[in-house]
Every structure is written in C-alpha cells, then in structure tokens.
C-alpha cells in the first residue's frame, strides 16, 4: 500500500544556458507515494513559490507518457529508475522514506540546457525536417486499402513509430548518439510500401543531419534501447545501417 514518505530532492539549478549550474537540495515532508514524480516536483514548486523563491523549471505537458515533453535524469537514469515509462508515469512508490533523489537535465551536447531541467531538443526536429517524411502532398492519394500490407510488417512499423522523440536515447548514450531516434523513423517508413520509395535517400539525409548537429557515433552499447520509455528496439539501428549502406552503394 502507498504510504507517506519524507524525502530530499537534489536538483540541478541553472539560471540560463550560459550560467554556471549547481545542485541544490530541498527537503519535502509527507509526500504520498501515489503521487507521480512530476506531482512531487509540483509540490516542491508550490513550496518554493510560498517562500518567494524561483520554482524549478522543467518540461512537462500531457502527463500520460506520450507527448515526450518531460525530460529528466532521476537517480542516474533518463526518466528514472523504472523501465519503459516516462518521468510523468514514474510514481513516488518507487522511492523509500528518507531517500535523497538526484534530478538532472538530459546530459547531451546536442541538447543544451535552457534553464534548470529544461533543455533545447530542437536538433531532433531538424533531423526530421531533413527527411523524416514521405514526400506526398495533401490530396490525390490512392485508396487506403489499395496496397495490402502484411500484418507483421505493419505491426513492426507501428513499434518503431511509437518513438515519442523525448531524447532519452541520446541522453543515455555515452557517445551522445541519436541513432535509436533516427533509426526508428527510418525503419517505420522503410518497412511500409509508402515510404520504401525514398528509403535510401531518407536514411542518408537524416544521418547527414544527425552528424552535422553534433550527435556522436553509435558503438552498439544498447543503453538507448534499455532507457527508451517506449521500448524501441535496437533492431531498428541494424535496419538503419542496412538502408544507409544501400544508399552508399547506390552512389
């Protein structure tokens, strides 16, 4: 059963992108374990506002694990110690009475800190703009059932497409690589007949943009897939490599 616990929260505070950051520790008493982790931060912020202090800035929105907005390291793990969830789905029942919880922003050169726990993930959007789409305009497309797609293929594409673009993969990677993110989109579209046409060009364009934006290389450590809140599979990276090689050979 959920209980009330007293905790200490050690939070990374950084006033701006160029400011020197530091850890600050706050005490929170009587936190219900049924509360979500972000609700715990809300409680902390209410306390800070009551003391006329600057509340902790952090990204969050849907609070049901799908928008990909929340982005924080909790006790050394992106999205915290539980598996296959986002920070908003993490609950305080995963923590013990008296525990000190360390909260940091995403650690990645490509995601600079804006303030406190909020980072700039614009790089992911830029990669998508380089090729993460099927080049069709609105209208004039064939009937949806015109091309049958085998169920296992559609299901595999769906699994790849479940990526929420949160950035945990790049943040978890010791090389700061965005390969899992890029490969998820490349896989989804390469698997489907609609996206197959541009598969090679897409892989090349997205990888080139990823490199340009300062993401590191992939050394297959698998940390990305282990920390991914949506359990996007490492197999996608293999598929990306295949598409990328095909594209290179075609050149």
């Amino acid at each position: 059963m959920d209980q009330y616990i007293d905790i200490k929260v050690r939070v990374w505070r950084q006033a701006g992108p160029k400011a020197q950051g530091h850890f600050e520790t706050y005490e929170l008493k009587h936190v219900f374990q049924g509360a979500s982790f972000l609700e715990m931060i809300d409680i902390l912020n209410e306390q800070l506002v009551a003391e006329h202090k600057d509340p902790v800035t952090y990204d969050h929105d849907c609070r049901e694990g799908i928008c990909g907005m929340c982005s924080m390291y909790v006790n050394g793990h992106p999205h915290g110690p539980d598996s296959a969830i986002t920070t908003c789905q993490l609950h305080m029942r995963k923590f013990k009475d008296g525990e000190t919880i360390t909260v940091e922003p995403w650690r990645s050169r490509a995601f600079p800190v804006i303030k406190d726990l909020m980072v700039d993930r614009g790089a992911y959007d830029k990669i998508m703009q380089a090729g993460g789409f099927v080049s069709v305009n609105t209208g004039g497309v064939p009937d949806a059932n015109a091309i049958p797609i085998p169920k296992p293929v559609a299901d595999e594409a769906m699994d790849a497409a479940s990526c929420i673009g949160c950035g945990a993969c790049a943040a978890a990677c010791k090389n700061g690589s965005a390969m899992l993110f890029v490969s998820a989109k490349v896989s989804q579209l390469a698997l489907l007949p609609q996206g197959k046409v541009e598969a090679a060009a897409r892989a090349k364009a997205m990888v080139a943009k990823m490199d340009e934006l300062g993401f590191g290389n992939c050394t297959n450590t698998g940390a990305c897939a282990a920390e991914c809140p949506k359990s996007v599979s490492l197999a996608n990276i293999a598929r990306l490599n295949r598409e990328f090689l095909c594209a290179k050979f075609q050149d």
Partner: protein
Amino acid sequence: MANKEEILDAAKKVAVKAAEAALDVAGKVLDKAAEALEDAKEAQQAEAPKAEAPKAEAKPAAKKEAKVITPKDAKIPEGPLELKWTNYKNHQKLVNPANKRRLDVIVVGTGLAGASAAASLAEMGFNVLNFCIQDSPRRAHSIAAQGGINAAKNYQNDGDSVYRLYYDTIKGGDYRAREANVYRLAEVSNNIIDQCVAQGVPFAREYGGLLDNRSFGGAQVSRTFYAKGQTGQQLLLGAYSALSRQIGKGKVKMYTRYEMLDIVMIADENGEKRARGIIARNLVTGRIERFFAHAVVVGSGGYGNTFFLSTNAMASNGSAAMQMYRHGAYFANPCYAQIHPTCIPKHGDFQSKLTLMSESLRNDGRIWVPKKLEDAKLLQAGKIKGRDIPEEDRDYYLERRYPAFGNLVPRDVASRAAKERCDKGYGVNNTGLAVFLDFSDAIQRLGKDVVAQKYGNLFQMYEKIVDENPYENPMMIFPAIHYTMGGIWVDYELQTSVKGLFCIGEANFSDHGANRLGASALMQGLADGYFVLPYTIQNYLADQIGVPRMSTDLPEFAEAEKAVQEKINKLMAIQGKRSVDSIHKELGLIMWDFVGMGRTAEGLKEGIKKIDAIKKEFWTNVYIPGEANSLNNELEKALRLADFIEIGRLMAVDALHREESCGGHFREEYQTPEGEALRQDDKFSYVGCWKYTGEDSEPELIKEPLDYEFTERKTRNYKN
C-alpha cells in the same frame, strides 16, 4: 440513324429541362425575396425591443429578442445536403500560384488541425508562420488521443455510408450541430484515411493486409481506424512529418515555445477591421514579438482545463479563444463540455491531471457496480475486491438500461449513468466515486494474449498509475472533463465573425453539437486542416491579393503590444499571497460542483457568484515570482488562468440560459422520468453565440437557429 421520334423526344427533354431551370430560378428569386423579407422582419424585431429593453443583470438578452444568424450569414451553400460541399468547391474563389507566394498565413497551434493546415497551405504555395507553445510541434495534445478515427469507408461491409456517419454524428450531438457542416465532415472522412496511409501512418491491419476497424460509442458499425492505443500520436506524427517537410523547404517558418497573447486588427479602406497579425511571447526569453499575416488561423484546442483537473495536457488553455472573443468573435455554446466516462479516478489533492482510459476499452470491457449496497460499502472500506463479488450480485447497469447499445452508449449517457449509481451510494473505491470496467469476460472469451495485444499499453498505463493489475481485478473508472464541443463560432468557411480570422479543430464549435462521439475529434481536426480550411480560406484570400505585406511598426501593432505588456505588468505587480495553481484548483472545484455533470439554475447562479469572487481573489492576491522579461512558467500559468476564469463564467452563463438538457449539458430540471436528457427543441434549437461587450459587462446573446431541413429530429434512443 436518328429517327424523327428520337429527335422530337430529345427536343422535348431539352424544353422540359429549360422550363424546369426557369422555374428553379424563379423559385430561387422568390425564396430570396421571402428571405429578405424575413431578414427585414427579424431586424425590426431585433431592433425594436432593444431600445426599451431594461438592463438585465445576470441574463442579458433574456428579455429582448436576440439577434439572429441566418444560414446566409453562416455561408451555408445552396442545394441538397450531399451536394453542398461539391457546389461550394465548384464556385469558390481560388488564388493562383503566383499570388499564393505573396500571401502570408499565421497558423497558431500544431495539433492535428494546426499542423495539417500549416502543411497543406504551405504545399499549396502560401507562406506560413506556425506557432506552438511546446518545444516541438510534435507534442501538441492531439498526440494523447488513444482510441481511433472514424471514417465512412464501409470496409467491414456492415452497412456504413457517408450518410450513416453523418446521421450518427448529428444524433450523437443531440441535434445541436449544423447539418451542412456535419455532412461535409462525414464526406471528407474517407480522404483522411487515404491521406494518412499515404504518409506512412501504421494503422492496425488484419492478416489479409487490409485495414482493421473497431467499434466506438454511438455507432452500430465498425468504422474506427486505429493504431494500437496511440492513434492520435500516429496521426499527429503524420501531420508533423508533412509539416517538417515544409519547414525543411522553408515554406513554413516554425516558432516553437511561443504563445500568442493577442490578435492584431487593422482596418481596411472601408474601415472594416481585419485580423492582420498576432502578438506573441517568446517563452524562453520573455520577449513580446509582433508578426504580420494576411490571415490568422487559430487551432489552439479546447478549454477543458478550466476545470483544473481534466484529461487535457497541462499547457492546454483557452486564452487564444478569449483573445478572439475579445475582438468580436462569438463564443458559441461554451456550456457544451464533454465528460468522458472512462478515466482513472482521482486519488489525492496534489493531483495535477486525470488520465483517460480509451473508449475502445468499452468494446470488450463491461461496466458494473454491485447490486447490493452492503457490497459497495465493503468495497469502499477496502475490505473486499471487485473479483470477490459473484456474477449474480453485479449490476451491469449500462447493459440493463440500454440493451441495444449496452456498454457502447455515447459518452454523455455513460458518464451520467456512472454518476447516478455513485450518487446512490454504489461507488466502488474509497471515495465512492468509481465504477468497475471489467475484462474478465473478454479474457475468458478471447484469451489473455488477445486482450493484451489489443489493450496492452492501456493496461500497463493503468497499472503504473494505480498499482493494481487490471488482468486480475477489474479496472476502476470515473468520468472526467475531456473535450469541449463549444468554442469559437465559425461559418461554413471556418471563418469567425471577425474578418480574416479563422478557427479550426477543437477550438471551434462546429461539428459535434452538444456531444462528440468517440473517434470523431481526430476526424474533425484533420478534416478542418487537410481538406476544408485550405479550400475555404482561399475564398477570403482571393480578395487580399492586392494587400501588400504590412510593417509591424504600424501603430495597431504597437498598441496591441502595449496592451499586452500592461496586462503582464499588472499581473506582476499584484505580489499577493496565493500561487497560481492554488487559485486554479479552487476554480476547478467550483466548476465541477456547479457547472459539471448535473447543473441546476440555482447551482449555476451560485457558481457565477463564486467565480466572480475567484476573479477578485486572483486579481488582488496572486503571487508571481521572477521577472516578466525572462522564462517564467508562473507568469505563463497566470495569464492562462486569467482567461480560464472568464471562460468558466461564460460556461456558467450559457448553461444557465440554456433551459434544457442536451448532450453534455444536463440541467437536472429537464429530464425524463427515467433520468434521460430532455431537449426543448421549440425553445433552444439554436447555437448560443455570446458576443463580448466589454470587461465585466454581460455578454450579448446571438442565436443561430438550427433548422433541420434534411434530418428528422428524434429523442436519442440507445435502448432498442
């Protein structure tokens, strides 16, 4: 070889056709004349009592005859229902490619409606400026829609058709939507599915490789397309990818972490004010910036967060709607809010939002409470679990009350039925505010694996939040605010009552009447953005090709910016004692208690008083830390709350004036002996549009009568 008879016959046919056409024209002229006469009469009626009308307090416009919006004002095309949209498209004005390049369009919002509109307009050649409050357009709250999207494909061969989708939608909306709009929605629904598949949206498929469907509330056919329990995500990512492609091409300039704070109006040569730009705050730097465009499109979503606790995302807000409203756009049917029956019950005061469990769960889940009050008491005390109650002691109340639709009745009906049981003391959790959603039958019938495959991610989500395994013990659910059918009034072209200002998606009022059916929000958002607005906006823009790009140094921009800055300064200067959230929570409780699932005249009057008190408290006692000209979440929340308070009041005023029960609006005074909603078609068959008359001044009611030309109105019946 044509013989004489044939020639004669053909000649006859031509003659008859000509005569028919002449008669038609004559008839139309007569119709027009009659309409003009009618208009003149109405104008007289509207004018005359106005002069002597006493200033009413809480209910303006109650004593005098309200102004009326005619089908002509709403630009509803002529002709039979199924030809209206075709006729419109055949005769609307278009903008040629060279001129499209010279026209700028601002799109506010990147949800299904905003992103699809921005992408489609850019593909056509317009220059688009697109704004969102999140750090990426992919995070708009459409992403959280779970269940699916409706379309009239009839792939299942179960008798579906455009007409049937139209009929279900208009009936589901309790006959409070416009026929022409709803028919168009049903018509373009099929294009949406084609479009999404072409974009690479991985919809669920059957083993034969064709698309799969499921059933949703309010329909007797399977017409809902889905992608696991993440349909909204996949559709939004489809629109986002189309948008990203245009951003990459430089046709869309994307502004992330920007929030619109006002619309800039500039008068044309005839003195008519037109929307020509926006004032927006850069949420990272706190800087107020100005943007020009030839037209402004707002797709900012709904205002459900007025209730603080809702299924909406934390940043979802109604401020864009209020900015439009203050510039003269009518706010239509604000009281129509949807309470979704299947949400995870509230568990504490610290709670920040409510989580929805997809309606698709009602395909296989059965809703029940105990038959015996003593069993309910044991459940509330935590002494027994749902699974301990034997089959014969369970009351599957939806199946009992509505045999024809059972667990798949529309949302408003299911929500009220849950409230009715809980009010009688049959609630199943510690607060007494929950009912069971049970999958044990489905698990027995289909096996655990099949159930897991269909609903696995939802079950996982439930377990993470509640810490209980829904495969073993029935889920607990309770209604929560989910969607707002009301919104900014738009005509058939999706233009508001302000020239050059368009409103799409949940933010407008157009297609769902008093209640939205499941899987229809995604359909409407994408219909507006992909297939309706990109056409209709050209009918406006075609007349703007001679308008040059304007400088944002114009006095109208400067004044708008100054007003925004003053409002911010005023808020920052209050330096009171209360946090924004604490006041918002208080507002939410008032909304739930007085403007929630069961409304009464007395309660609403009380609610309005309490909301007025909250407004005073907010403007004298809120505390916002930090600086205005920097990243400041508390200031963002305060600006939104200031508008939520106004919306809350408008909802209450509208609910009080609408003396009937329809769809999501349930007035306890108007119900059948069985507790079903009782419409008052003779008095309230109209869209209630509220016109802003100034700060702290009662809004004026304007009516758009809903004359059902093509569909017979019935009392909704889901029993047989």
